[in-house]
């Protein structure tokens, strides 16, 4: 027994003295591919830092960050005022990349991409529009022959950041949605079948003619799904792509008054107006404390600065929309403002 204890102590002492600064993070699954790319690329830049990330979901990320069991959290949705109060305001939201939600559908007879207006999307998901040849869908798609079949709504059954972005968008454009359903990572959908994960939704949509569902943009791109052009606030139909998502963020900074941009960067991008802006877009965030302990603190600070500048070049290849140039100075300022004690 004694021997065992000595052995364990020796091992643990040994490993801490050899190992580099170990940083632990946990949270959103959506940015996991780019984060893990960043962690491995960053090791080439700064070999003494090792970052561990568990992709347990945004909810788990916020929880572990609030309980201080990790050095940083990650979430697709910014923390709510209530959640921030719980950590006594000690949180910075660092936007890292952008994501978007697309509407994928299964209409094999369609000759062209489907176009959807905000009102139509809301009413489909509220169960008010039930047929594909509904007058309002026809109006948005002049000249397109639409089938007479029923619309089958598919949505996520598991709690998800994707659902959060989508329901936030619906709450903004439809007062009916806002009062009846609301926004959140899991909501009480009035109609539809639930699929688990992006793959579950896709599986159901692909197999059911007449189905419509929402998935993450990257997932739709990688799997070559058909998805709809969505009308934005300025009346343009926009095809979702990494470019039109970055444009949504860029337009936000062009069109929003400086005084109205939230200081803490908890920016909601959905229903963004402006040229070429895809309306169902959102930032994903890394959550860090305003004051970090010495040693680890500098490493986290340096990594974040690298991620929002040099790290951005890896985004597009992996299908993520990068931060718009307008935002970069603000984020850098925020990261530089982290105090290390």
């Amino acid at each position: 027994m004694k021997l065992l204890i000595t052995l364990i102590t020796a091992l643990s002492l040994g490993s801490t003295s050899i190992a580099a600064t170990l940083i632990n993070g946990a949270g959103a699954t959506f940015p996991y591919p780019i984060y893990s790319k960043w962690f491995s690329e960053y090791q080439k830049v700064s070999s003494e830092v090792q970052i561990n990330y568990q992709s347990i979901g945004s909810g788990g990320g916020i929880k572990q960050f609030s309980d201080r069991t990790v050095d940083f959290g990650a979430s697709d949705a910014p923390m709510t005022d209530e959640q921030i109060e719980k950590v006594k305001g000690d949180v910075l939201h660092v936007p890292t990349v952008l994501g978007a939600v697309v509407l994928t559908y299964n209409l094999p007879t369609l000759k062209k991409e489907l176009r959807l207006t905000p009102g139509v999307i809301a009413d489909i998901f509220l169960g008010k529009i039930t047929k594909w040849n509904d007058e309002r869908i026809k109006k948005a798609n002049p000249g397109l022959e639409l089938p007479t079949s029923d619309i089958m709504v598919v949505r996520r059954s598991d709690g998800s950041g994707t659902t959060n972005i989508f329901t936030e968008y619906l709450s903004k454009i439809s007062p009916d949605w806002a009062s009846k359903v609301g926004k959140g990572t899991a909501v009480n959908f009035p109609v539809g079948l639930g699929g688990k994960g992006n793959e579950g939704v896709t599986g159901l949509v692909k197999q059911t003619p007449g189905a419509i569902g929402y998935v993450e943009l990257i997932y739709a791109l990688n799997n070559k799904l058909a998805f709809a052009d969505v009308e934005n606030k300025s009346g343009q139909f926009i095809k979702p792509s990494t470019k039109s998502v970055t444009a949504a963020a860029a337009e936000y900074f062009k069109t929003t008054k400086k005084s109205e941009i939230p200081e803490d960067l908890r920016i909601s991008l959905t229903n963004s107006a402006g040229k070429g802006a895809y309306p169902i877009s959102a930032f994903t965030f890394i959550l860090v404390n305003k004051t970090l302990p010495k040693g680890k603190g500098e490493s986290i600070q340096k990594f974040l600065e690298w991620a929002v500048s040099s790290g951005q070049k890896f985004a597009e290849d992996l299908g993520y929309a990068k931060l718009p140039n307008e935002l970069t100075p603000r984020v850098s300022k925020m990261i530089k403002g982290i105090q290390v004690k």
Partner: protein
Amino acid sequence: MTTIAKRPKDVHLGDRVFALSLKSIAAFVGIMLIAIGFFLAKASIPALNNSGFAFFVTSVWDPVQNVYGALPVIFGTIVSSLTALMIAGPMSVGVALFLTELAPAWIASVFGFLVQMLAAIPSVVYGLWGIFVLAPWMRETVQPTLSSSLGFLPLFQGPPYGVGMLTASLILAIMITPTIASICQEVFKAVPTAQRESALALGSTRWEMMKLAVLKTSKPGIFGAIILGLGRAFGETMAVTMVIGNRSEISFSLFAPGQTMASVIANEYAEATHDLHLSALAAVGLALFIVTIIINGTARVLISRITFKRQQA
């Protein structure tokens, strides 16, 4: 019965250390069970305090408004499991009867092995098969046939989605068949050969022999096996979640999507941020935990009673 003379106490240190370590391992398993129950009970207090007994009998599950009613998931669990049992029960008894009474030894061993292999397939694989093969088949063939022939029953009404309660029940039925069949087989094997021979000697046909000598005496055992299958169906998560349609709603149509206790936990736990939401999920878990323990306990008692009786005979 013979009584074994009490052995003298172990004097060797090694023996005593070994016995002690085995005892602590056994105790650990028991403690784990109690600890899990304790954790679930503790975690579910806020939700149960908040809505009281209404938690189990109301049917709105809305994480945005923080309103939690578990009735639809309880309903979904019971309906999907019972439907599965109705399909798997007769099928498993038939399989077991064939394997013990009719099949030549080599067929019995090969076939028995194949049935056992069904139990070895990971449930996520069942789920994938369900999404890609079973659900389209249900949507295009089974459900239209059912609704055109038996559509007057409320059970088979509504649009054929492919996924839903019936599809989930079918998958469950396939998954619990090996459990029920293998226990039934053991139960049938425990029937003394003399009993079969006497039935045959009295002039019964083969079927009458099975009915009188085997099935009749095995009733409690079969019942126990079915209940064990029920226990497994109750807790099955992954495969069910993938094909049940995940909607917290009570519908009497088997075509409609539903949700089970296990699947709502698997779906929502990872992204639940509100304390009450987490607690509501824990309360669902507690209910599932208690029900499963009761079911499994009952089954064990029934099965052990029959095999114990046989051993004494």
